[in-house]
């Protein structure tokens, strides 16, 4: 089974600089896989254990991401592909999916595994939009799988219900993270192949990439207002007093 695991690389720090559109400035910032991407890659490796085949990890970025992709190959991915070009900067999910699908259409694949929501923007749009663009099935909130002959049986967790669905192998799935995802320590994987493709090699026009190819536009950004403006009510005391206060909060 040829599996493609989509991974988003995010800054490895709490605070970054943001441009006027609210996008982080990635110059000189170390980028690492976010937790949802890690979950997707782990799930892809589980599928590979059952079906064999290859796992390709794929990311889209406007920056150089070799170090982040080495973490993915260190987790076991057979190949890492970075769709990387400064022109991809400020891509929304639609534009990102255009870039991803342009690459995937030229590749053979059986299954595309994504995280449900990325850590930073957290829209959760990419898997669904990718399935429409590729014309394949879509299974969201996947937490486990079994097999039945050639079919994959996925268990989906919608929060209020758990659903079991049968899908043909060619589909896009979005994997829900367990409550305590294991984030790999920063390190380098083996010297697996890291393929880098830019806008020109993907045959994407300048007006279809980045902000130009996006369907939404950030008009303004602002720092969220603090609601209490330094007036929060602070309680200090022994653990019993603290537990009592929280008990009142959750039971009132």
């Amino acid at each position, binding site marked *: 089974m040829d599996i493609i695991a989509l991974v988003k690389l995010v800054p490895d720090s709490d605070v970054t600089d943001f441009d006027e559109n609210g996008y982080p400035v990635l110059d000189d910032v170390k980028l690492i896989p976010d937790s949802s991407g890690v979950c997707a890659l782990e799930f892809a490796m589980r599928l590979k254990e059952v079906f064999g085949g290859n796992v390709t990890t794929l990311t889209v970025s406007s920056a150089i991401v070799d170090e982040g992709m080495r973490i993915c190959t260190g987790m076991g991915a057979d190949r890492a592909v970075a769709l990387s070009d400064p022109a991809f900067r400020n891509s929304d999910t639609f534009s990102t999916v255009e870039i991803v699908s342009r690459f995937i259409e030229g590749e053979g694949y059986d299954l595309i595994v994504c995280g449900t929501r990325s850590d930073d923007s957290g829209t959760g749009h990419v898997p669904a939009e990718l399935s429409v663009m590729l014309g394949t099935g879509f299974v969201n909130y996947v937490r486990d799988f079994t097999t039945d002959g050639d079919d994959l049986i996925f268990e989906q967790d919608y929060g209020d219900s758990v659903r079991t669905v049968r899908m043909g192998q060619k589909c896009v799935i979005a994997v829900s993270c367990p*409550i305590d995802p294991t984030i790999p320590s920063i390190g380098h994987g083996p010297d697996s192949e890291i393929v880098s493709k830019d806008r020109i090699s993907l045959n994407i026009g300048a007006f279809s990439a980045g902000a130009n190819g996006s369907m939404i536009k950030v008009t303004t950004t602002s720092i969220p207002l603090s609601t209490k403006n330094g007036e929060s009510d602070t309680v200090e005391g022994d653990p019993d007093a603290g537990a009592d206060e929280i008990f009142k909060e959750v039971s009132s």
Partner: protein
Amino acid sequence: MSECSSGSCSSGNCSGDADKLPPGILSVYDLNQQTGLGTLVWAETDGMGIHPAVIEILGKTKGLSEDRIFAMITGSREIKGLYGTLFEYGVDTIYHIRNEEMVTYRPEAYAEALADISERINPMCILIAGTPRGREVAPLTSAMLKTGLIADCIDISMDGGTLSGTRSVQNGNLNAVVTCKRMPQMATLRPGAFNPGEPEHGRKGTVISRPFRPKSVGEIISERPNGTPSPKKRISIAIGKDLCEDETVKIAERIASNVNAELICLNGSHGSPSAATDVCIAFDVSKGDKRILKAHTKRLVTVDSDRGTVVRTISDRSIVGNATEILRRLDVLLRQ
């Protein structure tokens, strides 16, 4: 000075150039104009009735413009009893998709149906509640319509036909106001972020039963309820990286289970509740995570082991004390 430039004629007298266009023709052929009217809402049901997050959307939508509000609802004849609720909260026209295959929730089929209705009525906006199912249907629909989708709005406004959605981005460090470049403009709205409007008892509207046959999708083998129904007070509990060890996580899981809360373990990653909550109790989380959590809750109560990490500008209430010990005592208290 010539009145004609850039390939268009402003006077209609440019006979010397056969390629010049008549006045105003370029704007006529701007196919991305706001020709639609009204707002289309997906009326998600939750087994008990119309989902509360849909009522919140309708409360906000009524104040956006004077245009009609359309709603798509799916299900058998049994859900006719829900028409009245939708009308009372502001819906003018209901599109009821009655196909037997649409009685059970199927994301692709529901998205197809929404896209189909959108192409028929040409709405200015499509608004969908940011529930787990709404967050699934919305991007499928936007991709089918090849239009933009503003995710997880905590506020929306309409100015001259342009929908602006405010969303929290970059781990809650910024609020961004976002617009769509194409029509229809789409947005998902965060549950709990909007107040439901007052119902107008006895209000009536139009119902249109629309035939629709979805394309074939995956087979649903089974579906079962997952735990207890949603409580009236939505609570989340977040524990910071240093507390995400086995024993403490187990205590936090017990507490979360006891109070029907969602547990978020910030083990080296950022995280936020799956939906907005009424109260979030955060134990030893970083400043950045406090800001994220505050963006997702009405009331943030923080517990900090170190007084130096208290951020009074973010927390609504802060408790200083040994976070692990407070978790243990709270666990005991709740079990009593």
